[in-house]
């Protein structure tokens, strides 16, 4: 019995050598590619179907969206810095960078709300045209992903403040970081395909 116990404790590693959660997250991200792919395709199909309403080049405000993109990119950097800090056992810096990431994310989402409102005022309603429906659905979906990410980050900050986010739990931060970078990658696609090629 004792041997079995020893055995069991000596072999906690998995077949792939990677933790279940991390593997699961990657599997999940693989599936998300098809989700965003479908939405991007819908947008591409409808990008010129403006039904007499405003077109993309009428409303898009590239300078502002560029700043938003930079902000999101920056947040990816702060996210890795947070993880790297926690891996060193530096809980304070981890917290600082997590909070910064969340704030930058909030600025991004705030920018999106601004953008949506501006487009709406300029006559691009959700139901105006296939183009507008597809645009709002795609970017809104991305925005929801970012918001979910922010909520997770804020929760991590609170957990960290209570002292429950130590070096041993760096993987939790890593997983949320992976999600965050994924959302960033999606934006890299959206920014180029949706905004820059108008």
């Amino acid at each position: 019995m004792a041997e079995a116990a020893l055995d069991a404790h000596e072999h906690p590693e998995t077949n792939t050598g990677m933790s279940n959660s991390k593997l699961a997250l990657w599997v999940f991200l693989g599936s998300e590619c098809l989700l965003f792919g479908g939405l991007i395709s819908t947008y591409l199909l409808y990008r010129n179907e403006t039904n007499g309403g405003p077109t993309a080049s009428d409303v898009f405000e590239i300078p502002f969206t560029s700043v938003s993109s930079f902000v999101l990119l920056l947040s990816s950097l702060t996210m890795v810095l947070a993880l790297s800090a926690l891996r060193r056992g530096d809980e304070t810096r981890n917290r600082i960078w997590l909070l910064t990431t969340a704030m930058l994310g909030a600025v991004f989402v705030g920018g999106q709300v601004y953008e949506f409102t501006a487009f709406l005022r300029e006559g691009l309603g959700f139901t105006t045209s296939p183009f507008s429906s597809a645009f709002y659905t795609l970017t809104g979906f991305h925005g929801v992903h970012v918001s979910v990410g922010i909520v997770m980050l804020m929760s991590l900050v609170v957990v960290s403040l209570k002292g429950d986010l130590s070096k041993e739990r760096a993987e939790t931060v890593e997983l949320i970081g992976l999600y965050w970078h994924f959302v960033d990658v999606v934006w890299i696609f959206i920014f180029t395909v949706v905004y820059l090629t108008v």
Partner: protein
Amino acid sequence: MLTTGFKLFFGLFVAATFGAVVLGYTSGGNHLGPVTFGYKGSVGFVFGYTVLMVAGFASGAVGLLLQAFRDGDAEAAAQLLGTDTAPVGQTPLGDSMWPLIGAVAAGTTVVGLVVHPAVMGVGLILGILTMFEWTMSAWADRATGDPQANRELRDSVMRPIELPALALGAVALMVASVSRVFLASSANGAVLAATILALVIIGIAVLFATKPKVSKNVATAVVLIVAFGVLVTGTIAAVVGERDFEHSSDESRESEEGTSDGSSTDSEGDGSHKTDAGAEGEASDE
């Protein structure tokens, strides 16, 4: 038989109520209004009247409570319960901020009655929240005999609700404020405001990251100031309102780069206030 606490609060009650009535009359109310809470007849300066009345009644209630519990005197309580000694109180889980928040909630609700339904809504939500949280804390305080266990029990039940609510609330406020600021600025102003905001955030973060020895109080203060600044600016921007958008097509709105843009770039460097000032200038510019 009247306890000291009661006397104090009863005095406050009388003073505040009297003050409210006087204020009600002198600021243009008619003869019945101020004594019927405006039910029969008008009250002059409604806001001031309301605040004083609420303060008065709150004091009165506290006074009665203190009288009933003999200022919290253990022997008196034992006498009241008919036992030899007062029951040993359980250690509460820690400092409770709910009485404070509850008071704010009550105040906000009443002010909201007068000012704007939205404000009242906020007050009501806060109030419901307080009742809920307070109840749960009170329950957890008595759940088992072990304060440590109680705390963990409370956390295990309440954290799944508190944590997302807190996070969501914070995100929503931040997003709302930021977007209001952008909306109030001109198109280029929004670009500038976003840039500056991001730079300030990352700047503060870098500052803290390079000096991790900064005392906790300073850090908390800075975070609070930033949060408060963002909120206030957002509110101001919301009040100022959105800039004029041209309906559909035609993009000739590049012309509105005011001087305020320049002024806000100058003031980069020391913290949120300046950004806010910049964004604010942007807002008022329109």
